């Protein structure tokens, strides 16, 4: 029991650290695409420390505080279900639907908090976020159906194990289509550029985040870091073969090796998201809904049908 708690804590620590590094990488790579130097890689950590040490905190009541904690908790819970190489905690129960669902919950938590602030910009942002959430359900649903159909199981860990013998998911034609659809969905889940309609800096002044400051924003930064880690990890697990290394005799070496392999895969996923985010401008909300119900849905549905044949 105690061992599990310690392990959960270590996973959380690792996820937060790597998540912040990912945020730093996003800023540096975006800067390089713009021919800028960009901040040092640890900049998001400094930002978060600054936010957490602000003296004044505005609160608009219980739901305003609770929504943030709720978002953070849901993200951490999602992380616990995703297998990280060989060291996850709840991987036996980590099925596709549960994790997909848990990865969307944080958005709802942020919406709660934003709506209770009574700021019209936040309301506008929340509305857009919910519509985006609705739009990505369709390709996401097809993607899960395709995966379950192909591997005959919902368990993420079993999918990872199956890929050890059958090769990565993206090497199979139906699942490649699904992976492309899922990657487009990831863009909205990260809140990156073509689909960052709910945050929309400059357009609706940060949308839901407009009212947060101080500790609320700091916790949201941590939540964002963990969410980045969890989402890339989930993608790497189900499409890029995860990583379960058994080459070494010592279990510690195995763990480190599998973490390193996973990290490379996660960064690959992240890079694509950054590139797409840096070169495409933002969609309007109706364009985004139409886009998600068209191309990713067609791709994912085709993948699901092919997988069922």
């Amino acid at each position, binding site marked *: 029991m105690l061992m599990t708690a310690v392990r959960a804590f270590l996973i959380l620590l690792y996820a937060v650290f790597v998540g912040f590094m990912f945020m730093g990488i996003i800023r540096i790579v975006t800067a*390089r695409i713009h*021919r*800028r*130097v960009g901040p040092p890689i640890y900049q998001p950590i400094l930002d978060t420390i600054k936010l957490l040490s602000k003296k004044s905190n505005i609160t608009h009541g219980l739901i305003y505080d609770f929504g943030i904690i709720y978002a953070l908790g849901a993200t951490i819970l999602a992380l616990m279900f995703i297998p990280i190489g060989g060291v996850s905690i709840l991987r036996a129960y980590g099925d596709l639907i549960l994790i997909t669902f848990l990865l969307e919950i944080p958005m709802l938590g942020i919406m709660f908090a934003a709506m209770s602030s009574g700021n019209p910009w936040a309301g506008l942002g929340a509305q857009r976020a919910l519509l985006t959430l609705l739009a990505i359900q369709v390709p996401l649903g097809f993607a899960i159906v395709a995966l379950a159909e192909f591997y005959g199981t919902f368990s993420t860990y079993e999918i990872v194990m199956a890929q050890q013998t059958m090769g990565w998911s993206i090497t199979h034609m139906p699942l490649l289509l699904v992976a492309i659809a899922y990657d487009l969905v990831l863009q909205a889940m990260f809140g990156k550029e073509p689909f960052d309609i709910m945050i929309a800096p400059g357009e609706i002044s940060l949308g839901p985040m407009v009212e947060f400051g101080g500790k609320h924003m700091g916790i949201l930064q941590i939540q964002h870091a963990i969410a980045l880690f969890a989402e890339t990890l989930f993608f790497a697990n189900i499409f890029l073969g995860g990583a379960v290394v058994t080459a070494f005799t010592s279990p510690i070496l195995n763990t480190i090796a599998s973490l390193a392999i996973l990290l490379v895969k996660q960064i690959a996923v992240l890079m694509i998201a950054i*590139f797409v985010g840096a*070169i495409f401008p933002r969609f309007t909300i109706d364009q985004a809904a139409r886009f998600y119900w068209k191309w990713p849905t067609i791709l994912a549905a085709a993948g699901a049908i092919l997988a069922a044949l």
Partner: protein
Amino acid sequence: MEEIDFKVAPESKIKKRPSYIKPWLGLKYLFKKPVTIKIPYEKTQIAKNYRGFHSLDWKKCIGCNFCGQICPARAIEMTWIEVDGKVEKRPHPKIDYGRCTFCEFCVDVCPTGALGFVENFMLTTEWKDEELELFDWVPIHPDKLREINEKFPDYRFPVGKIEFNKETKEVTYYLRDGDVFKFKILGYGVRPPAAAKPKPAAPKAEEAKKVKKPEEKKGQKSEENSS
């Protein structure tokens, strides 16, 4: 009427087709060297004759107030000055950088070429009153400015601190190369103030002659003031 042939570029030549592929060309700068000047470590190259702070040759300025009249921001106020106990015969312009727009009209209009400018443009202070004194100065001699610029080529304001003593009206410039420059402000405006009226050489001579009659003089003065 002569027929005029307007040249209009056709629509088809201007309009580009939207594409999902072409934006990826935007990634071509990813591995190029960033085009950035790392400011605290690298220096920018300022244009020759970049319009910055003023310089004033106190010996050449004739106090004509042309600069004060042309200044669009009314940043120039004529100031009567006493250096080392000697009153300057003519007023000199004092420039308020809180108002100045750095148009340098005052430099162009100056008939004697006394007013000039250097490329320095950096002047940052905190909110404290004593630091804000820096924004209000009678410019110093151009040669001195060049000398300071050679020592500190960072385009900052050549004076580190200006102290203004409200009682004695004494102004002290602490220049950046360590020199201290002191003078007294006797009054403002085009007309000479009472303190500057007696010509520094003449009254001394008079005093020497009429040492025995100081009371008379005082009486005269008070009459003058009352009338």
